[in-house]
Structures are given as C-alpha cells and as structure tokens.
C-alpha cells in the first residue's frame, strides 16, 4: 500500500531552502506582503533572520519560497527586465501585471530546473494593490490575497474565513500577523521574525514583528 510521502529534501545536496510561510493581501489603500524569516539546509536553520521580501521595482515586491538560489536568481532577472522596460519607455513604471508575467515566463520555461514558488505584489495609482501568485509549475493566478510556502497549508482555512475585502491597514497587518503566527507555529520549516512590506499611495513601509509580539496573535 502506498503511503503519502513528503519529500522535504527535494533540493540538491547543500542547497538552501526557504522553508517558508509567505502571503500577500490587498486592502483598501494598497497591498501588504508578509513573510517569516527562516532558511533551512535540511533541518539546520542556516539563517533565522532572512529577508524573503524582495524589491523588484519601486512599488513592486515579491515574496520568495523554495530554493533560495533559484528565487534570488529569478528575482534578479525580473528586476533587470523591468529596469530595461523603464529605460525604454521614457521612465514609465511597469505595472504589477507585467512584472508577474515576466516571473511566469521564467518559471514556466525553466520549470524542470527550478524550485521556486513566488508571490508578486505591487501598487499603482491606476489599479491599486494587486497580488499575483506563481506556484511551482509556472502558472499565473491573480487573487485578492495569496498564501504560499510549506507553512501555508496550515492556514488555508483560517485565511479563507478571516479575509475581508477592503480592510484597513491595521486590520490587514493583524490578519497577516495572526495567519503567519499559526503557520510558523505548526511548520518546522518556518520561524524567526515576521517581516511585512506595506505598499500604498503614501509610499513603502517596512514592518518587523518579534516572537513575543506574534506568538499569541
């Protein structure tokens, strides 16, 4: 009888994994990205203060999960393409959709060689906050909020029940804090601190939450 086997070691020998719990949530004024800060090599915690929220353009950021090397490489390439777009379009900023589309192209065409689960989120004046999720196979999905990473499986129910459209900034921060707190609690590959990036008309805000603050959220 076949058992259900979870291969947590699908990375190459020595390769580092962003075990991970990541999410991005649109709200009234824009979008907030959130992530834990644990990087593991097998079961050893190689970095307990990782920054998994990466800037691609001014107000387009991404959450990275899977292989640390793969996601860093892909993000760097997308960043390059968007800089070229801006230069060749008279300084016009690319939309979040364009960034997500480039992520998709890279992840789909190199699907056999990559282990990357990425959430691309951004804010612009015209479209407000947008969230695009690009899972392992390289498909593209737009949602009001997205969760990903090994820890996300524990919070599908909680997020479905507690997400509301057009929340305030504080409501959204608490929603992400409570969700990631649970993901971190149950998933051995997630942990450390909770980092968030708030993207709105007013600008870019970085938030940090330590265990004492989120453990009982």
């Amino acid at each position, binding site marked *: 009888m076949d058992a259900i086997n979870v291969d947590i070691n699908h990375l190459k020998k020595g390769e580092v994994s962003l075990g991970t719990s990541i999410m991005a949530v649109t709200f009234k004024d824009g979008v907030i990205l959130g992530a834990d800060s644990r990087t593991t090599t097998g*079961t*050893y915690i190689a970095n307990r203060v990782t920054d998994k929220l990466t800037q691609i353009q001014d107000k387009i950021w991404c959450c990275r999960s899977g292989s640390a090397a793969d996601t860093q490489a892909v993000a760097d390439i997308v960043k390059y393409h968007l800089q070229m777009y801006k230069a060749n379009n008279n300084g016009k900023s690319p939309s979040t959709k364009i960034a997500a589309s480039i992520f998709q192209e890279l992840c789909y065409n190199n699907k056999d060689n990559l282990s990357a689960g990425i959430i691309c989120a951004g804010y612009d004046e015209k479209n407000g906050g947008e969230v695009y999720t690009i899972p392992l196979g390289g498909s593209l999905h737009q949602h009001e909020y997205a969760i990903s990473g090994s820890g996300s499986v524990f919070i599908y129910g909680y997020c479905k029940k507690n997400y509301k459209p057009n929340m305030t900034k504080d409501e959204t921060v608490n929603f992400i804090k409570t969700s990631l707190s649970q993901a971190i609690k149950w998933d*051995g590959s997630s942990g450390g601190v909770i980092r968030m990036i708030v993207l709105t008309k007013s600008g870019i805000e970085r938030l940090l939450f330590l265990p004492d603050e989120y*453990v009982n959220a």
Partner: protein
Amino acid sequence: MSDPSSINGGTAVAMVGKDCVAIACDMRLGSQSLGVSNNFEKVFNYGHVYLGLTGLATDVLTVYEDFRMKTNLYKMSEDRDIEPESFANLVSSTLYQRRFGPWFVGPLVAGLNSKTGKPFICGFDFIGCIDFAKDFVVSGTATDQLYGMCESLYEPNLEPEDLFETISQALLNAADRDALSGWGAVVYVITKDKVVKRYLKSRQD
C-alpha cells in the same frame, strides 16, 4: 521513506556538575515539518536513574516501557533500585540484542550512585555502543548544534544552580537552530537530597 531517527525530531542532553547531574530535553513531537505535540517529554526515570530517549517516537515509548519492565523485575529480585552504572550496561545489551532490527533511539543515562554519591552520565548509539563521558553527552536531531554549545559553555565542577543555567542555554540555543526540535523544554537537576524539574520558556517556532 525518510530516515527513522529524524521523522519525529527531538533533542536531549546530560551534564555532570559538582556532586550533581542534569538531564534535559525538548518537548516537540512532529511528523517531519508538521508539529504535532508540544507535550512530548523525552526524559524518564526508574527510581533514581534517569533515561533520556530521542529518535523515533514509537520506539522512545516502547523502549521506555521495556526498561520499566526490566527494572521492576530487577527490583523484585535484588530488593533494591538499579544503579546508573548497571542500568547503562543493561541499556547497551538490550539495544545490541536488536542489532539487525534496531530500535531507532538515542539513549542518555544520568544519575547519582546512591551508595557513593558519584555523578554518572553516558550516551549510546542506536545499537548500544556506550559513550562514557566525564562532561556531557548529547542526542537527537540537534546533536551537531549541541556539541558546539556544550563544548563552548561547559566547565567542570559547576554547582547545581550554575549547571542548570549552562545546560538550559546549551539545549535552548541548539534546539533553536534545528527545525525539528523545540516547542518547549524541560530540565532535571539531580542532587543527593532532591531532584528539581523545571520547564523552560522557549521559542514556539
């Protein structure tokens, strides 16, 4: 199928002090990355002899019960509790009896000899090789981290209160660098007249 000794996760350590010993473990039981219980203690005792057991959880419980039977029979026949040195040899032979179908456990023995008062600790591999140590022994999924912590923090002849601090820091910081250990910790400090069991406040990630 994964390696049996790292499916459930967990860690333990024992140290020798001045006329005392300490033994400690974390409280996590998981199913690979999923945490299942934050209440799974891995230190047991038979009279004044303490046994720490890491590894496959089902084997931890079975081996604990197997030794409970053996030490009860010992008590009935010898009319006294088993001493740590004797228990250690019992652990070694019991594990080697299963040489080609082993229990996937990493045992640690700690205690004071009731007659001489001498502190005693030792560790074993899963097939019964005894590691008699004068200072500290480690076991579980965070052994590499524990070796580093113990080697740097340990000094001989620590008083019970200081030994408690040292073993606690060694366990906590090693477990915090291991994805499969943590979710609470418990420390026993054993002296001639009393045994103090303390639960530690630890990271819950």
